[in-house]
């Protein structure tokens, strides 16, 4: 069996400890700390918190033609993707120090490789850290945190938190900063895993989310990012209407996404399912591939090819996942795997 033959990476974190283990250690080190309000069970902070990103529209440079247009795409006859990559994150309050939350974050990522229409694990990674506002804590608390068997991330100085801005003492601000940091860690383990794939394999990899966060991945032809969330839309005005007006099996023209901190990528919107009677985002994904500076014809050919691969993944459905209109089954399988090893 393929699943049994792939190498599994060792867990990355030096001290994998469950949140309950950490709570026990903390109680032993600081009996007065108490665990009131800590959430080791129930929904994670990601589930219970509202989205952190504000919705926004960004214009992008169209590199296929002069303006954003809808184009019909034929699904690929044979599946193009050989593997799927997805990651998860889970944040929970470990304890409160001086009323400020200490947050346990766990991130994981997996690549599931497809062989004979069945998915098996290629490699996976699990890491966990404790996110704390160290600058706002007493020396005693900091000493206690240092004694815990887990890496500590100071959310008050973490570059990912709050975009580098100072974090206030408001517990919600600390919580949001921690979630940002956890999210950044998740992206990091995803990128690292994707890079390993790009180093070792030449077959196309379906990445859940964007690929521009990793220069190595964003420049590799065999990595395809598929974004399901659209808090940021790369279209404005008429272009936005083109995006919303996409019918099932249609894509937009290719445009370039650039960012000071990220590698430029070529991207386009693709409608996976018939949106009739649904919201405008129904079945809408945004695809990212390497911006290789090819000719327009080559960009078109490549966008049609990759779109065909993505459309070929619409079956089987990712139900019962609520995002099944945009999620392909391979990504759901990754999530199931990560849920199983949680």
């Amino acid at each position, binding site marked *: *069996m393929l699943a049994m033959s792939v190498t599994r990476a060792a867990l990355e974190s030096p001290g994998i400890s469950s949140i309950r283990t950490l709570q026990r250690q903390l109680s032993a080190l600081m009996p007065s700390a108490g665990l009131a309000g800590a959430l080791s069970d129930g929904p994670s902070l990601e589930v219970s918190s509202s989205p952190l990103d504000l919705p926004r529209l960004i214009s992008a440079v169209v590199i296929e033609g002069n303006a954003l247009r809808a184009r019909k795409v034929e699904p690929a006859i044979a*599946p193009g*993707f050989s593997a799927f990559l997805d990651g998860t994150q889970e944040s929970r309050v470990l304890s409160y120090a001086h009323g400020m939350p200490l947050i346990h974050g766990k991130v994981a990522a997996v690549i599931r490789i*497809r062989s004979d*229409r*069945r*998915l098996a694990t290629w490699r996976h990674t699990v890491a966990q850290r404790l996110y704390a506002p160290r600058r706002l804590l007493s020396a005693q608390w900091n000493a206690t945190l240092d004694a815990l068997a887990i890496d500590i991330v100071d959310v008050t100085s973490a570059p990912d938190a709050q975009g580098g801005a100072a974090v206030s003492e408001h517990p919600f601000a600390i919580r949001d900063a921690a979630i940002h940091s956890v999210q950044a860690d998740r992206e990091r383990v995803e990128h690292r895993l994707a890079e390993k794939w790009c180093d070792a394999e030449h077959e196309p990899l379906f990445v859940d989310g964007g690929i521009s966060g990793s220069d190595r991945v964003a420049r590799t032809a065999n990595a395809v990012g598929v974004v399901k969330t659209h808090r940021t839309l790369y279209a404005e005005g008429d272009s936005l209407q083109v995006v919303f007006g996409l019918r099932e099996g249609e894509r937009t023209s290719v445009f370039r996404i650039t960012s000071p901190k990220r590698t430029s990528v070529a991207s386009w919107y693709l409608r996976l399912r018939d949106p009739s009677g649904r919201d405008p985002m129904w079945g809408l994904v945004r695809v990212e591939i390497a911006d290789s500076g090819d000719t327009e014809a080559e960009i078109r050919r490549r966008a049609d090819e990759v779109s065909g691969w993505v459309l*070929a*993944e619409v*079956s*089987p*459905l990712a*139900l*019962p996942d609520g995002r099944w209109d945009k999620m392909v*089954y*391979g990504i*759901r*399988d990754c999530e*199931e795997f990560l849920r199983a090893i949680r």
Partner: protein
Amino acid sequence: MTTTNQSSALGRVVATERKPNTPHEFHFWTALDSPVGIGTIVRVEGAHPVNGQIPQIYGVVVEGFSYTDLQTPLHDVMGHDGAPGSASLAATERAEIRLYSAAVLRQIPEEPMQPVPMGQVFLAQDADVAVALRMDGYIKEGSSTGIPIGVYRAGGTDAAIYLDADFLIGPEAAHLNITGVSGLATKTSAIEWILGSIFTHFPEQKGSVAAVCFNVKGPDLCFLDLPADIGAADKVIYDKCGVPAGPFENVQYFAPYKSDGFSLNTLRSNEALLHNVSPLTWGLREVLQYAEVLLNKDDVDAKADALIDFIRERVVDRDFSDPMLGNKRYVVRSFADLEGWFRDVLSAMENKGNEGWRTHHVATIRKVRNRLSNISTRCAGLVTDDGAVSDLPFGSFQDRTVYVIDVASLEEAAQDLIFARVVTRLREHLEKRDLGVNHVIVFVDELNKYAPNDGPETYVRKMLLDLAERGRYLGLVLFSAQQFRSQVHRRVVGNSGTALYGRMDADELATPGYAVLSPAVKTKLASLEKGQLMVRHPHFTQPIFVRFPRPAIMRGRDGAERYPQAVDINLDAAVTRSLRTLDSSITLGWVQDAVGIRDEDEIIKARNATLRERPADVRKFFLAQLRPTVATQVVARPAAAVRSAPADDPYGF
């Protein structure tokens, strides 16, 4: 299919709160292409030692589950737009699981008995099978009491399965019952195979063993001594089990005559096979002991019973006289003698105007006369008027010999009589330890007819119950078969230490007796191939599926075609055939010359006596049984003088 590396794990134990493991059941998953199926024996290796020992748990798969991550079937319909064909075009197949439930066969260490731990699951190998089924306790080199019953096969494992002779033939437990639908020849084949295995492997230290088989239908058991070709696959099983692939070496057949009194009433009547066929005939004395079998309760009330007792104790084989009957002395030895005795008693009562005689009312005497006289008619061919007896060799039974009694063509009453008397005699001799062997296996097919769960209490059923409950102490073992186990008396099947199941009818499987089996096991039972059995044995905590070979014995149907039944022949030819089994030089011409114009009864009596005595000089003995005939004398007719007519009287006045 995955190549099974027997040393690598094929599954992992799983347990959830909703589906926990217990000391008697556990669950495990396998790869999709694993060779596990219902009936597969597996071994679990625990991860944590208990009392310093890593637990080893053996189980047999009793249920299987398969499912995907679909939440509802509707999702799949939606995913393929209602077109089932498009499912095969999908780039990815849904995640799927093969989940099995296994019933625990054995835990090592046995104490403390704990729920099955998480661990790796391995396919049981030969040695594992022996441990799992506790066979390691009785198949030890040098002191084995194992009787091979077939092989267990799964994923490359090919292990012989042994029953414990102490629990099959006694004294610990005994008896074997086999059930299954008719028409597959599984039941008969299985019994033939097991008898062969017992004759080969029954331990010498446990003594001798013979089998008495009642052939109750068709030619099933009529050719046990004739070989048949078997396939290579069957030969492998014979070799694995160490049983020679051949027919029984010693078989003796017994069959009553037809109503004509001289043709054997069996499908094994072909002249080429008569060398080991003996007639089975009984006289008045033998039958009267079992009058209860033939006479129902309406026939035999207390008064009639008393008269029958009187006849049995005071009349039959006694020198009997009575003042009412004058000076005549009676020695009643046959039904004919008894009829004469009844006739004289009744006419004497009539003559004297008596209503009763020796406390017996005339109506009772008439009734008993009627019923007893009727027996020789109902059991014609078996019961002889002249009292001739030809019986099984009680007292000189031979080790490893099969005695087949063909009752297939007999009336039910005659079948019951034979069954009751033979089994009773076997029991009597075993009690006295003078049967000739230490153990006798009695094979009865159609048990639901002889020991039904409902219906009136019969002598045969009572006797079967007694045999099932007490026979093992004597060495009298019941091997029984039937189509519907649920229709057999519970105490008979319940006392069978070993139970075999061939392919079963779905209706039968729906009866409460099979409630302990999982739906999957029932499904497997309903579709078992010929040559497969499910076995329950006291040492096996769960039923096990085994394969047994086709017996290397000519099938009844083949035998009947190859050795067709003898056509009805006249008395002279029948006598010739009978006597030729003792002296092959005897010809039809000699017999015709010998018997001349004697009546049938006399010829049959002479034939029976010859067969019974088996003399060295058959011709001389047979002739001696016939009444001498007066030599033919030519008597010269006296020449009468011819009177001449008087001259004066031309008319001779």
